[in-house]
């Protein structure tokens, strides 16, 4: 035996080689495998390009015309209605009947509400009497000015959500529960002290409970104070095959106030104003500008109003053609199919060509091989998704606005979350596909399963195949839950919304919870892949 032969077969030399390379070397090996297969690189680039193309196409064809039936139809930006922005920058609805007087400096307004009744107007034009919307509102308000979107704080009774204190459109605090009636009236009080507004409620006018305190920054010295009534559009959706059927229309509510008192520097005379009547035709309330409909009998005021004071949410219920940044990301589906295909092949082709034996001979630690493949494909998918999402939104969103859609703006951080989240969702699906490729060892089966468990639940839900309850559970439990990360507008408890990823962009899970569900699926698939890799012969 020659000395060379002995030194070559020394076990510590081999172990030293492996240790010198470590995980970095495995990673580099996998990266080399990926980038040197032209088809895979092309596949990833194609995924990004298709994602952009489809997203921009959908964005450019979102909405086409508007106008009153019978009159010449308008299209594009001519349809863009007046849009009010709240103090937080979000798009808001701000229309209500306001019985007001100016208040200079600090003061307190108190009123008792003894009744809240409502009616709805269905799409057919029929009025449905006695239909009080759950979020019809009657109460007292302190508002910066009569300008739509200005800051406010309000105490109110609602259709079926008890007493609430709401402020600056997004804020909502619950007060006394139960509905209002002559036998069970509700006393409401708002006190202004500088920038601080405090809301109280009471069932009898003697025992008061503080509901909440809010700071309205830079509130002017003179504010508008008074009683208001408003009632949002209703939407009834029924999901069934071939698309949901929905009925929606405006509702109207009437509130009865008495024991109205206002302390502080004010003229003492009430003026009725309809806030939000000055927008173009088609916006509620249809009455247009002018005095709010109210009647006064002694100390009792009856105010009738329609509209809402709330953030605008996506979906059919608001009467506004809305668009979200998530809508230009619909192309993520085609990107997903291409990325998943490449990712599944990244592992399964090694079995077809027998390369897996070479790979495992070079790196006997099978977990390291799986991890390296997951890291490489995840990183590539993330970058492809990130580029595609940024371009889709940058190009698609202006097109949505050109279509006459109201873009529901979101804070920059939310935009970052939607974009990075979409990229992360694609990366997680890619890792899931790699794991499936390792488990099944066949590209075809891995791709099909990966695509079906992500795309099918969404499709079944978007097509309203199931009644909404079942569709919601599909989007909660399957990997498709990860798509929730594209939801840009938060759900507000005080606004009725429907879960419909296609129509409104609302998913049953919150963005991060949805992504976590996808993470769990991916982790489970990786764990199973690891067990199978270790147990089976290559």
């Amino acid at each position, binding site marked *: 035996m020659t000395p060379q032969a002995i030194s070559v077969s020394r076990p510590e030399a081999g172990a030293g080689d492996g240790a010198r390379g470590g995980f970095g070397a495995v990673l580099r090996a996998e990266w080399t495998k990926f980038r040197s297969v032209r*088809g895979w690189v092309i*596949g990833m680039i194609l995924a990004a390009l298709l994602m952009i193309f*489809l997203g921009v*196409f*959908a964005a450019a*064809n*979102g*909405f*086409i015309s508007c106008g009153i039936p019978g009159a010449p139809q308008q299209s594009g930006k001519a349809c863009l209605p007046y849009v009010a922005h709240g103090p937080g920058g979000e798009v808001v609805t701000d229309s209500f009947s306001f019985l007001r007087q100016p208040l200079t400096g600090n003061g307190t307004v108190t009123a008792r509400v003894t009744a809240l009744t409502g009616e709805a107007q269905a799409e057919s034009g029929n009025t449905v009497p006695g239909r009080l919307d759950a979020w019809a509102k009657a109460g007292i308000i302190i508002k910066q000015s009569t300008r739509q979107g200005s800051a406010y704080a309000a105490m109110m009774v609602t259709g079926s959500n008890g007493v609430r204190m709401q402020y600056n459109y997004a804020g909502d605090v619950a007060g006394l529960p139960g509905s209002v009636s002559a036998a069970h009236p509700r006393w409401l009080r708002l006190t202004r002290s500088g920038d601080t507004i405090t809301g109280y409620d009471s069932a009898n006018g003697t025992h008061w409970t503080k509901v909440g305190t809010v700071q309205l920054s830079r509130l002017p010295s003179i504010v508008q104070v008074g009683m208001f009534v408003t009632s949002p559009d209703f939407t009834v959706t*029924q999901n*069934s*095959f*071939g698309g949901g*059927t929905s009925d929606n229309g405006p509702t109207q509510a009437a509130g009865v106030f008495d024991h109205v008192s206002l302390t502080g520097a004010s003229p003492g005379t009430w003026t009725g104003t309809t806030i939000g009547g000055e927008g173009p035709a088609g916006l509620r309330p249809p009455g247009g500008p002018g005095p709010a409909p109210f009647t006064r009998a002694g100390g009792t005021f009856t105010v009738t109003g329609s509209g809402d004071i709330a953030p605008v949410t996506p979906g059919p219920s608001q009467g506004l053609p809305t668009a979200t940044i998530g*809508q230009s990301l*619909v192309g993520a*589906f*085609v990107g997903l*199919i*291409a990325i*998943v*295909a490449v990712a*599944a*092949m990244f592992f*399964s*082709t090694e079995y*077809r060509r027998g390369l897996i034996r070479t790979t495992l001979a070079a790196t006997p630690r099978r977990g390291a091989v799986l991890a390296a493949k997951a890291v490489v494909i995840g990183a590539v998918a993330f970058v492809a998704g990130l580029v595609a999402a940024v371009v889709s939104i940058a190009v698609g969103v202006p097109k949505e606005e050109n*279509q006459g859609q109201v873009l529901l703006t979101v804070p920059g951080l939310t935009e970052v979350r939607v974009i990075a989240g979409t990229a992360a969702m694609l990366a997680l699906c890619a890792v899931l596909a790699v794991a499936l490729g390792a488990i099944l060892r066949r*590209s*075809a*089966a891995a*791709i*099909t399963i990966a*695509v*079906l468990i992500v*795309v*099918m639940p*969404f*499709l*079944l839900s*978007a*097509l309203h*195949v*199931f*009644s909404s*309850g*079942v569709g919601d559970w599909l989007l909660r439990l399957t990997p498709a839950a990860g798509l929730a990360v594209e939801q840009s507008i938060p759900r507000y408890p005080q606004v009725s919304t429907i879960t419909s990823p*296609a129509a409104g962009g609302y998913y049953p899970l919150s963005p991060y919870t949805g992504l976590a569900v996808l993470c769990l699926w991916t982790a489970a698939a990786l764990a199973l892949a690891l067990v199978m890799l270790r147990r089976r012969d290559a």
Partner: protein
Amino acid sequence: MSGALHAEWTKLRTVPGPAWLLLGVVALTIAVSTAVVGATHCPQDLTCPVDTTKLSLTGVQLGQAVVAILAVLTISNEYSSGMIRTTLAATPNRQTVLAAKAILLGALVLAAGAVAVFGCVLAGHLILTGHGFTATRGFHPIWLSYGPTLRAACGSVLYLGLIALMSLGVAAIVRDSATSIGVVLALLYLFPIVLAFVGNTHWQHRLERWTPTIAGLTIQATTGLRSLAISPWGGLGVLGIWAGATLVLGALALRLRDV
């Protein structure tokens, strides 16, 4: 030709994959349909605008994916294993090979599709009637004796056959199994998603008339026929054009390229 057919039949029946996939078509289609009809109720006080036949045939939407895999593997497996060289050495006329594959695949899918669709109709018939979709409330019977339901059921079987032929054509063009599956799944499922997001009525109309799955599945409609973008048989015809075009392209590719 009969020799080629016999050869293809031998290849198909001597590996376990195709039999399992055909079983998968039947099981998955019926399972999804049963789940969907089981989850659909029509309460007494509501009018339910549901096309009960179409609802019962929902499983076809998932079953078609399995059909597509079977069709793709019929040809792409030969490429990945190198078997295609042996096949073409035995039958040098390449069109004959593709035709034999198409005939055999079509026959098998039609047979499995018939069982699957019958199971779906049976599930709808047995379950939906108990969920409030009764004749007294104006719902048509979900059974093959009712003309439109018979048309929808037979059409759905043909639909699955055409999906198989289209997928075979794509696989003959693309050759690689993974890429073929990706392309076919995109053809099947992307257009419905795009349709859900595109608000432009012109584009909606175009998508409904000319894309393989949306147009093809109009064959399942039994209510609101006047408002369809394309007639049921016309829609299936559009899918037929897609299948024919991909098969012709696949045959051309097979003829012009080296193996």
